[in-house]
């Protein structure tokens, strides 16, 4: 049997669908330049995609047709040579909308495989976000503004070809930079994109991530029930309504916290999270009312605490809040955990104020790409700088 290559592209549904598809297709076409057959597909269970929800594309390539068929016999590869996360916040975990359960971003990586992440963060930040792996793997960062666009508009910021250049660097057995450049000319007919791929090839280096590095959390596990253990009639018990809870400082009981699904969380959809200034909150209830995911807990002192396991990071709370900077959306990479902001504030109001200001002041604008008109234009100088300086 020949050699089988598997590459997965993890992306944010809809916003990066075309990007992921372009990378996946170009991988197969570049390998084909070197006589290798391959297939490219989007994971069926991820479709129809929901805004921002993690999804996957796969490129399977082999040295010959028979080996390729071995790879195609299982729909989703059990292990991959390269995992590409085209948004760094995906490193916190991947929970597809149809596949319950959070999975580590590096779950499918082979020993010694490479995780390629598009990010402006330092490697330490990416490593801290990613779950630990029992064996070492490589991390390569493609420095750049995370590319978000949509189904109908494509942000041609060269993320696609730069990723291809990096693949030819970290896995030269799959294809060479020369094949990548040939495909770029065939597909995009753009010599500047050819240069971008070459620059990415030259600039990329990877570091080894050890088993003792990364998020030590063990993603929850569950057993699927047998057919005779399941309820009949496609009817499932509802999640209980929830109720009052205790203030950790005053021990007062009150407010309302809805019970939430114990196995299906939503936070891996999030690229930014609301940071709340409880001191300026006027308790108008709008964030709580408008949140499409019922993620706000009503606290015993009648404030509104966004639960970070349930928040998708859509930004509606920020949009409806009538008080300036009471709710501010901040890049998800700024946070190490999903702890309650309200509890932090209750315990140490001064400390919370300092924490809040540091998050807001240092925040780098972050979104799915349509929060306000002219946002892309604002990013162009930075993107040009990354392109020339690296």
């Amino acid at each position, binding site marked *: 049997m020949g050699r089988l290559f598997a590459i997965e592209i993890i992306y944010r549904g809809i916003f990066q669908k075309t990007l992921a598809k372009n990378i996946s297709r170009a991988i197969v076409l570049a390998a084909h330049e070197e006589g290798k057959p391959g297939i490219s597909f989007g994971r069926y*269970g991820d479709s129809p995609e929901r805004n921002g929800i993690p999804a996957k594309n796969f490129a399977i390539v082999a040295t010959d047709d028979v080996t390729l068929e071995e790879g195609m016999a299982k729909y989703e590869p059990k292990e991959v040579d390269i995992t590409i996360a085209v948004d760094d916040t995906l490193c916190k975990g991947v929970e597809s909308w*149809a*596949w319950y359960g959070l999975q580590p971003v590096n779950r499918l990586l082979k020993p010694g495989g490479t995780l390629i992440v598009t990010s402006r963060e330092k490697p330490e930040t990416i490593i801290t976000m990613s779950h630990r792996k029992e064996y070492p793997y490589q991390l390569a960062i493609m420095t750049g503004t995370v590319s978000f666009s949509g189904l109908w508009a494509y942000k041609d910021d060269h993320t696609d070809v730069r990723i291809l250049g990096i693949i030819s660097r970290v896995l030269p057995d799959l294809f060479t930079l020369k094949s990548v450049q040939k495909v770029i000319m065939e597909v995009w007919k753009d010599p500047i994109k050819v240069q971008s791929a070459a620059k990415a090839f030259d600039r990329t280096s990877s570091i080894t991530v050890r088993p003792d590095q990364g998020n030590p959390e063990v993603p929850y596990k569950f057993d*699927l*029930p*047998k*057919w*005779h253990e*399941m*309820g*009949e*009639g*496609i*009817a*499932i*018990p*509802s999640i209980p309504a929830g109720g009052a809870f205790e203030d950790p400082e005053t021990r007062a009981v009150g407010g309302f916290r809805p019970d939430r699904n114990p196995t299906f969380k939503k936070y891996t959809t999030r690229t930014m999270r609301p940071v709340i200034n409880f001191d300026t909150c006027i308790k108008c209830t709008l964030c709580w009312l408008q949140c499409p995911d019922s993620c706000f807990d009503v606290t015993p002192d009648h404030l509104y605490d966004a639960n970070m396991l349930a928040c998708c990071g859509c930004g509606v709370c920020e949009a409806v809040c009538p008080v300036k900077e009471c709710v501010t959306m901040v890049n998800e990479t700024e946070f190490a955990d999903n702890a309650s902001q309200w509890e932090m504030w209750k315990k140490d109001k001064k400390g919370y104020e300092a924490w809040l200001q540091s998050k807001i002041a240092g925040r780098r604008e972050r979104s799915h790409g349509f929060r306000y008109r002219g946002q892309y234009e604002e990013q162009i100088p930075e993107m040009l700088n990354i392109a020339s300086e690296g």
Partner: protein
Amino acid sequence: MAEAATSVQEHKKTDETALITGSEAIAVACKLADVDVITAYPIRPYDTVMQYVAKLVANGEMDCEYIVAEGEHSQFEIVKHASACGARVFCGSSGVGWMYAMEALTVTPALRIPMIAMVGNRALDDPGAFGVEHNDALAVRDLGWQLVWVNSPQEALDTALIAYRVSEDRRIFLPCAISCDGAFLTHSQALVQIPAQEKVDAFLPRYNRADLLLHPDNPITVAPQGNEDWVMEIRRQNFAAMERTAGVIREAYADFERIFGRPYGNPFFEEYKTEDADIVLMGMGTLSTPVRVAIRQMREKGKKVGLVRMRWFRPFAAEELANCLSRFSAVGVIDRDYSFGSPYMGGVLAGEVRNALYPSPGRKPPVLGFICGLGGREVTVPDVEKMVESVYRAAEGKSQPLTQWVGLRE
């Protein structure tokens, strides 16, 4: 000014005899079963049932929610939801009306809804014929619907009561369609024994949706979207429910005989003059009448012919039927339906009968298929004689076409 009907009339204490059509018999069964929610949308020949139900409600003889929907899809969806909320329901349709409801028909067994529907069998369009063909009801044969064919108004009434009893059994919770041949049954009146209400009450317990009841006191989510991690298990559950139907049907017929005093023998198929028969014909619905007449005439000429009339098509009593058919030297199956492109281009029932025989350890008689009586064309005594001749030739080992069209202008 006439006084508005404000209360339901007193229940009848004793059996009585009435001259009614098959459709009216079904409507009377709905009244006796005290159905809670009935939806309707007119299409011939089913519309006769909705007219009779409307009359019963308007006369104050029956108390139910009677909703005329804006189409069959809504008609079946409304009762599906009402049943999920614990209501005993009834609806029905015919031909392409039934097909228009198809999406609702597929989800009904999946959600384990014990809906009882009357299908007034009608040819599918085009050419827009009103007459009977069985393809409408048969379109749902793989989906978890119980399907039963009846051949008289009496059997229609009795089978409707039995269908409620079986479908609403917690072990089953599957829908059931009662097929009544257009015109021959839906529009023909016969003398029917209408049982006393107390007998029906003794036979038919109230519908109890139990753990699946959609109610604020029992918070559940019904029909969430599931993926490949769940679908096979859900289908397997419906497989198990359908497996249990045969036993529950037997129980119900035994109780029916005990309470109403009317025996049906084997619930799944009826045998006529088969004890000494060389060959038998098979079929479903009202075509049994000309077949029985033909059999009697041919027996006078020394031809030992019998009839096996299938009542329950789903569940299909395969083993029992294979056992029965092993007694004969050849079988002719009359299909009032078609299945173009199917094995040997036969009708649906012929294919099912061959299928039932194949794994049987006993004798496997040759099975000939006859397509006959489509679009409401009469199945005549000479037609039946023609079939019998061919089946006899097959019994003698002579090669016969496996599918023959009978009663065709050719």
